[in-house]
């Protein structure tokens, strides 16, 4: 088979797979290279599944709003499998006056950016979700937020793109991008050499060392976050949940299980042995966080927990950008732990950038050269 494609996507996560799908729809030949043996094995299949607009940086908000309005509602239909998208709102909960202050600040900033989100009382929150503890005294409420199944959404994009003729190669770690006559052209892996007219780098934190091979640095760090899942519960509620104190976040899935993410406070320093392993402190800590807001779940059994790295950009928004010094290269990394919800929008935008089309939304806030020294 030919080792040439119009576009080479480095990274078979949801960003790479979505981009490959939208490019294939435009008639492009696409090759996706994935380091892992499994498609979407990074943050794409390990995150908490939030499809939120609330709580977003205002630069990222238009991408989230666009996806929720135009892409998520029809995604299952379009990809031919259920990605378990629910649009039942996001409750961010508070139990103390200090919490309410935090929520009011977030709500005010989101409203100024044009999002329909407002503060509600504890009683109103209980009307929306009757299972809440009486200790909840208020919440912010964004009725158009929701969640989806990250594993299924990632594989749905992969499956559909593969049906449309996109070539995917796993266990194919990229070592280097090479310029030919000043333009990014070749992708060198451990075993092979590939050529593309456009190269899209969407490899999570690994993007940093790959971008370095053409002299570009993306300022980001890696942090290991954890998620756990309960046994199936009867259908209870489908709002996305979060808290002002960031104790935990999560939702109930189609399967009936609750998926909850959280942290112990040691995410920056936990030992990881170069694999995304869970820490013995974290799952217990997440459970204590959940029970403070949902005492009714204390008998629910935890079946499984897992961890995943986020590629945390220094200003916590992604880099989605062409690179002036390296024509032919497009960066898509540093999603900072909230890439899943905006992945359909980002895939669409990247496909437009690769085709040289005008992008539906402005991407100038996500430029690779935005990092300036403090003085």
């Amino acid at each position, binding site marked *: 088979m030919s080792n040439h494609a119009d576009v080479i996507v480095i990274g078979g996560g949801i960003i790479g797979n979505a981009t490959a799908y939208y490019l294939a729809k435009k008639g492009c030949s696409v090759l996706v290279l994935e380091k892992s043996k499994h498609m979407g094995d990074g943050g794409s299949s390990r995150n908490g599944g939030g499809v939120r607009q609330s709580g977003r940086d205002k630069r990222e908000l238009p991408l989230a709003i666009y996806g929720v309005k135009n892409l998520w509602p029809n995604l299952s239909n379009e990809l031919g499998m259920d990605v378990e998208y629910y649009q039942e709102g996001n409750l961010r909960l508070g139990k103390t006056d200090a919490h309410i202050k935090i929520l009011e600040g977030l709500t005010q900033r989101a409203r100024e950016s044009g999002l329909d989100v407002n503060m509600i009382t504890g009683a109103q929150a209980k009307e929306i979700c009757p299972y809440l503890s009486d200790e909840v005294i208020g919440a912010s409420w964004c009725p158009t937020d929701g969640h989806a199944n990250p594993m299924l959404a990632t594989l749905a994009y992969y499956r559909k793109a593969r049906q449309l003729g996109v070539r995917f190669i796993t266990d194919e770690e990229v070592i280097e991008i090479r310029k030919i006559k000043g333009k990014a052209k070749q992708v060198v892996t451990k075993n092979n050499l590939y050529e593309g007219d456009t190269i899209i780098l969407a490899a999570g934190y690994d993007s940093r060392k790959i971008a370095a091979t053409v002299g570009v640095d993306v300022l980001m760090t890696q942090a290991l976050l954890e998620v756990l899942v309960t046994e199936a519960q009867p259908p209870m509620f489908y709002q996305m949940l979060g808290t002002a104190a960031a104790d935990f976040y999560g939702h109930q899935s189609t399967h009936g299980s609750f998926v909850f993410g959280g942290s112990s406070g040691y995410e920056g320093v936990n030992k990881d042995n170069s694999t995304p392993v869970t820490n013995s402190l974290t799952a217990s800590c997440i459970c204590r966080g959940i*029970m403070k807001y949902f005492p009714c779940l*204390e008998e629910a059994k935890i079946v499984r927990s897992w961890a995943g790295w986020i590629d945390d950009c220094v200003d916590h928004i992604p880099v989605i950008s062409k690179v002036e010094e390296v024509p032919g290269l497009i960066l898509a990394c540093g999603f900072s732990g909230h890439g899943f919800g905006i992945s359909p929008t980002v895939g669409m935008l990247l496909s437009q950038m690769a085709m040289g089309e005008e992008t539906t939304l402005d991407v100038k806030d996500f430029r690779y050269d935005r990092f300036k020294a403090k003085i």
Partner: protein
Amino acid sequence: MKERNDRSVSFGAYLPEADDGTIICRCEEITKGEIRRAVHDGMFTLTEIRRYLRTGMGLCQGQTCGALVKRIVAKELGVSQAELEPATSRAPMRPIEMRILGNERREA
């Protein structure tokens, strides 16, 4: 052994078999036919099959069906079972109530 990392490689069409309706993963009620079809949908590793279908994601965490799923997937792909990595085992190894997992105090 043929490489299975190129996901466009063709290994024949899905052909129905008489026992496709047999339940393989009892916790999540996944049939042999569903597992075989998933391979043809592009899910080539046990980790992908698990995320796609939920095999081995129920209360027993694949301790009952793991070996069976592996055999079916290997046969469908035309590779040896030794080529397929098992899906990662996850803590806690037995399901534990939140109130117990969340309690780290010493017993009196």
